[in-house]
């Protein structure tokens, strides 16, 4: 594919989506007049206005902080459990069906219980995000340990490495690429769970902001927030991919 086309095709796709958005809003506005507020031009104008306001950036900062904290919990829990699953057949057998079961429960199902147990505020959001993000990290970590070069473990054994040294000096660096793959998937999941998780019991963040625009009947701002959520998620994913690639090339 010529390089120019590689650049133009994605732009063409975005332009087509924009046209469909415009067309959809216009058609809908015939039967529901309020739908005209959802049109692209108004949304983009509202976005430009919002980007100049400090309030929006506060919501973004709150959301990004929740992403970071949720991800940190997911890594802190997922990596050790993944390593344990990878090195202990007993643990893997004991937890296999349990993990597969928990993984298939939508994290948002825990929302009422999380709010009841952890109270209103950031804590239940952290819990939901971490709970959603822990699985790809755990599973990728365990897969990494399973694929680890057995000769490296033999080397560690021949050097009388302690269990701790084997884990920190051989296993963890040896599976960093796998962990990063899990983290990249986790960031995507967290970002998707974030908005609904912020729609209950909190008073800041992008999810809260979307409900707030609805309550204020500021539909152009609502659409602007949707565009912003997509754009930030896109950037987050690219940052994660870039880090992942950088690590692989560094080796």
């Amino acid at each position: 594919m010529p390089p120019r086309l590689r650049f133009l095709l994605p732009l063409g796709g975005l332009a087509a989506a924009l046209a469909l958005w415009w067309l959809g809003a216009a058609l809908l506005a015939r039967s529901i007049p309020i739908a005209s507020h959802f049109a692209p031009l108004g949304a983009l104008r509202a976005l430009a206005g919002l980007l100049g306001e400090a309030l929006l950036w506060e919501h973004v900062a709150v959301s990004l902080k929740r992403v970071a904290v949720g991800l940190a919990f997911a890594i802190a829990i997922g990596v050790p459990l993944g390593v344990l699953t990878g090195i202990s057949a007993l643990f893997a057998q004991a937890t296999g069906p349990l993990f597969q079961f928990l993984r298939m429960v939508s994290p948002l199902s825990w929302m009422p219980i999380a709010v009841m147990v952890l109270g209103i505020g950031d804590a239940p959001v952290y819990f939901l995000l971490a709970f959603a993000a822990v699985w790809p990290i755990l599973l990728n970590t365990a897969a990494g340990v399973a694929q680890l070069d057995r000769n490296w473990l033999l080397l560690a054994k021949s050097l009388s490495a302690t269990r701790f040294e084997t884990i920190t000096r051989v296993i963890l660096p040896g599976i960093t690429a796998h962990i990063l793959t899990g983290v990249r998937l986790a960031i995507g999941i967290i970002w998707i769970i974030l908005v609904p998780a912020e729609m209950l019991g909190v008073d800041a963040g992008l999810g809260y902001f979307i409900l707030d625009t609805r309550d204020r009947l500021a539909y152009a701002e609502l659409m602007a927030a949707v565009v912003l959520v997509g754009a930030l998620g896109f950037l987050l994913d690219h940052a994660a991919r870039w880090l992942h690639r950088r690590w692989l090339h560094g080796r």
Partner: protein
Amino acid sequence: MNAAARPAPGNAADADAAAATETSHGLLTADGLDFRYGALPVFTEVSLSIRRREIVALLGGSGCGKSTLLRVLAGLESPSAGQVRFLDQPLERPHPRSALIFQHASLLPWLRVEANAAFGLDFRHQPAIAAGVRQSRVREALAAVGLAGREHAWPAELSGGQAQRVALARALAREPELLFADEPFSALDAITRAEMQNLLVDVVHRWHAAVLLVTHDIDEAILVADRILLMGGRPGGILAEWTVDVPRPREDHPGAVTALRLEILAALRDTFTQATAGVD
């Protein structure tokens, strides 16, 4: 052709007698080693000893149990029966004064050459050494294997022979009394292999280390070793032993080398005949 060898009959009584006389000054002694995988015996009644600075080749065909024997002697596996003593202590796990190299260099791809050669020196079960001493040891070992100037290269940038040189440097940096080498050069091409064989002899002499070299290559055993142990049978055992009295470099004494080679081949034929006779 008296230069070549003293074949020793491989019966247990003689091996025991030899072990008994060498216990006092042997670097490593093994007594009555048995090893089984479940019910399957891999080798039985193996006794041997390795003296300081001696290069011993453990020669045998594929699947004769020689690699398993090396792992037991190195402390990576526990014998089903018998005992290994290293530096007059019973061996329970790999000893800090021993080092291993394998067919695979097993370099860690996230560490540069220098860090790979230093790997393990700071582990808890290793004798503590100052960082400065550690670095000078590693530099010296890398220089000895011909990799001075490549300290900052990544393993992915090295050829197979160079990677094996780093593995050798990693072993030398530990200043081992005994180097266990499990078919270390069998994955290399013939020319690189010949270079590495000469390098191995050169550096272990300079480091005053003994070597136990496991190999299936008769020529490698004759070119490298001071003593050759022939392993075979089912379950495995030491069948014969030769002292290689050919001056180095051995390539300069083709007559003596060839004579020893033929002797070993004859011994192999005999064991093969006995084995097939046993089946009949």
